[in-house]
């Protein structure tokens, strides 16, 4: 049987507000347990939530960023369940009337086409705390630092047909929210957590199969692998005539498999009802317009502009744009050097390579945009060959100074002077009679290959400073005149 995969995603996005959604506590990651939990976060008797306006603005930014309809009157609801890390015994969420309503998010796929993903809704809610099981021997600990951190839960329609699409969506979402400045999107720290609803159906069928939900997958790679494993699992069951149980599953990365967490049949009845401690969020057109005016250039627009303004290829633009900082770095280098294409090449090539090896983000790059532009200027004006440029790049990375200082200190200026070049060529030819004889005996195609030996020797002698283009011309002329 050929199965079609049908998936919808729910992403829990931590909003990068300074304080929590209903209290004044800090949302900083990594503090000691429970130091960032006040009486509201602890659910102490008599405490009341007060809505953080910044969380509302971030949610509206997101809605406008994906072109969704903004709920003019959205309401908080209580979602009731008992859990030790849920201090009030209910989570304040939005069930009936979310702040972001339907929209379509255009996800760029690797072939450059756009994949429209329908967004069902996105709603504000508070995060729960964390249960800690590995500190005390007989008891569990509870850390409520995270309790009350604002989350935007973004729900899609079942529009995904394979893992690549799901990952492309998550990457595009990550890019969008970092552009909007509403989240750091850090999956490893839990700022972006993904639930995947997966079902299979016979190819051509219109009805949906029974789905399983894989909870809390926290990296792009795990999303891809979890989907593959789950699709295999469901296909095996269906192929052997079995049925899928509707349930919640976990992806275990170590064993690379999904496994059952709890069955939906015994799942909680959350008994949602409107939160009486908070007023409805009323959003008028003026507010929406003001937020819209404050939106930065978003990834899709930036991609188009990099292509038209800098004549970059679609491929380079697609690589530069997702990381807001990389795109900004590129524009800065391009502006300062006046050479966009080399700027893109250096950033996507040597700089990205060096950053990856050092495990640094571009924000932490030891080479500033200004420094890299200085290097490109010296290549463009012929001072540096590409070979010398790599040495200067090395010097810049080691913080040896500006490009010009490194050229001076390391003596890396490209030599184009005919007299000096001629001396190097003559010395090398006369020092290598055997290779010269071979060269002279060879035919045209072989000669080309053998000339490389002389170039290498001359570069060595000149410590890489010989202008390669002029050197090559001079060398061939000299060799061919030797007979």
């Amino acid at each position, binding site marked *: 049987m050929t199965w079609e995969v049908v998936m919808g995603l729910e992403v829990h996005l931590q909003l990068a507000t300074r304080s929590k959604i209903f209290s004044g506590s800090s949302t900083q990651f990594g503090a000691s347990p429970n130091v960032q939990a006040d*009486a509201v976060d602890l659910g102490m008797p*008599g405490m009341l*939530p007060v809505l953080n306006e910044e969380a509302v603005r971030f949610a509206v930014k997101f809605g406008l960023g994906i072109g969704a309809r903004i709920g003019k009157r959205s309401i908080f609801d209580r979602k009731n369940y008992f859990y030790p890390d849920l201090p009030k015994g209910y989570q304040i969420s939005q069930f009936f009337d979310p702040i972001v309503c339907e929209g379509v998010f255009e996800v760029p796929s690797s072939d450059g086409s756009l994949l429209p993903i329908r967004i069902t809704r996105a709603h504000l809610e508070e995060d729960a705390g964390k249960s800690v099981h590995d500190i005390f021997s007989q008891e569990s600990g509870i850390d409520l630092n995270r309790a009350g951190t604002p989350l935007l839960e973004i729900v899609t329609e079942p529009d995904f047909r394979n893992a690549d699409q799901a990952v492309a969506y998550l990457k595009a979402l990550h890019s969008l929210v970092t552009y909007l400045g509403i989240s750091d999107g850090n999956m490893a720290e839990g700022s972006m957590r993904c639930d995947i609803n997966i079902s299979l159906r016979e190819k051509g069928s219109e009805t949906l199969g029974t789905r399983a939900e894989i909870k809390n997958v926290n990296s792009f790679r795990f999303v891809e692998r979890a989907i593959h494993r789950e699709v295999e699992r469901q296909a095996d069951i269906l192929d052997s005539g079995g049925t899928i149980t509707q349930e919640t599953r976990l992806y275990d990365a170590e064993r690379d498999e999904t496994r059952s967490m709890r069955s939906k049949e015994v799942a909680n009845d959350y*008994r949602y*009802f409107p939160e009486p*401690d908070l007023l409805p969020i009323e959003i008028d057109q003026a507010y929406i317009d003001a937020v819209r005016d404050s939106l930065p250039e978003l990834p899709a627009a930036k991609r188009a502009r990099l292509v038209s303004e800098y004549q970059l290829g679609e491929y380079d633009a697609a690589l530069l744009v997702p990381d807001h900082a990389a795109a900004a770095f590129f524009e800065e280098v391009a502006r300062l050097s006046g050479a966009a294409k080399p700027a893109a090449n250096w950033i996507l090539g040597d700089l990205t390579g060096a950053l990856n090896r050092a495990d640094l983000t571009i924000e932490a790059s030891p080479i500033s945009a200004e420094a890299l532009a200085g290097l490109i200027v010296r290549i463009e004006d012929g001072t540096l060959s590409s070979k010398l440029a790599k040495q200067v790049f090395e010097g810049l990375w080691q913080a040896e100074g500006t490009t010009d200082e490194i050229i001076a200190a390391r003596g890396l200026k490209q030599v184009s002077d005919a007299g000096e070049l001629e001396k190097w060529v003559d010395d090398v030819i006369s020092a290598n009679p055997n290779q010269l004889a071979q060269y002279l005996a060879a035919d045209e195609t072989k000669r080309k290959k053998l000339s490389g030996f002389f170039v290498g020797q001359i570069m060595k002698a000149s410590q890489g400073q010989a202008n390669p283009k002029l050197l090559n011309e001079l060398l061939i002329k000299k060799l061919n005149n030797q007979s």
Partner: protein
Amino acid sequence: MIDSALLNASVSELHQLLTTRQVSSAELTKGYLERIDLLNGKLNAVVTVCAEQAIEDASRADERLTRGEGNILTGIPLLHKDIFCTQGVTTTCGSRMLEHFVPAYDATVVARLKAAGVVMLGKCNMDEFAMGSSNETSFFGAVKNPWDTNCVPGGSSGGSAAALAAGMAPLVTGTDTGGSIRQPASLCGVTGLKPTYGRVSRLGIIAFASSLDQAGPMARSAADCAHMLTAISGLDTGDSTSADRAVPDFFSELTGDISGLRIGMPREYFNDDLDSEVRAQVMSALTELEKAGAQLVDIDLPHSHYAIATYYVLAPAEASANLARYDGVRFGYRCTDPADLEDLYFRSRSEGFGEEVQRRILVGTYALSAGFYDAYFNKAQQVRRVISDDFRSAFQSVDIIAGPSAPGVAFPFGAKQQDPVAMYMEDIYTLAVNLAGLPGLSTPAGLVNGMPVGLQLIGKPFDESTILNAAHRLQLDTDWHRARPAIEDHVA
């Protein structure tokens, strides 16, 4: 022992005595503390006495007064209902669940009164989590009515009402979710006001039903209530439902002039459910107001009879969520040796909550359950709007609405405890006011068989002034609010 002149003095008179230094706050405070000491064994109205702190606060108030500073409430002693969180002072909410709970913060009401220089004497007993109309559900034992210690004081602010009636404090705070200020005020013969929803901040008040809860003053007169209401009212950014409305000086609005005031009498409040002797007393009070220039107008509140059913879906539903935090994990009662997490939850809550609280949690949980939500919670929300609309249309033709505060006088202990619905009927005239978010007060209207009766006055939203003024007029023209139980005779 505090002399009877001081004991019966109004806030204005006490203020006069304090500012002229004829009496000090410390003397006043000690006098009331002695009285609590003398009477509380009999009444069980006060669960925590803060003697040392009170005397210290009184001295500080005296310093302010000596410097010519302070305001109308500076140096005046007061008791808080034990539902208000008080920093460093045990706050039990009448429950075993919070028997040892000491908040690290003051409720806004407490903080505002503290800032005004009021001296807190202690905390008053109450029905557990404010769920009850007789004060029999308190984990700390029932409060006795000072008019007859075989009878209940009403509830849930029964400790507050009894303490006030017995002269343990000149001012007390209460909260009212369905009648919890007005019904005990009625049964104990004192004045109690439930303000408009949003008038007084709920921050730091232990929640029962968030959309209905409202704190208010209880005192010996409408004028004294007005003083306290001015001090506790007003926007609090810590409570999103608190109203951004100007707060008048409620005392200065008491002109005593009610000529032309149109008072609506709902036919539904004066039907056969009402005890005939209580009705006679309520009518004589209304006749007094008529004599003072008011007009009595018959009106209809056609959906009144749905109020109890509506209330007993919505309030328990909200309570079921509000009380979920008492799970034995972070604070409050925890059972001994829990076998696992579920056992911890089950036993902590079964042992920590009393029967009535558990009943309401179960009712509320049921009403919100999948498949029942529309039939119960949603329907009740709709009826709530209809009940509000009844009042809105009635207020087209009248300025205030009047009726009884309770269907009868104080009843003996145990009389209604085995029959929850009979107990719920105690609030038949008060619940709708909470559902509609309106201000309402109860003012004494004489005695039936030696027990107090209350007249309830209901106002338009944020128009506490008009009902306070009408009660003030009645208190100028009658002595009902001056009647005192002979509790000392019982003690002696």
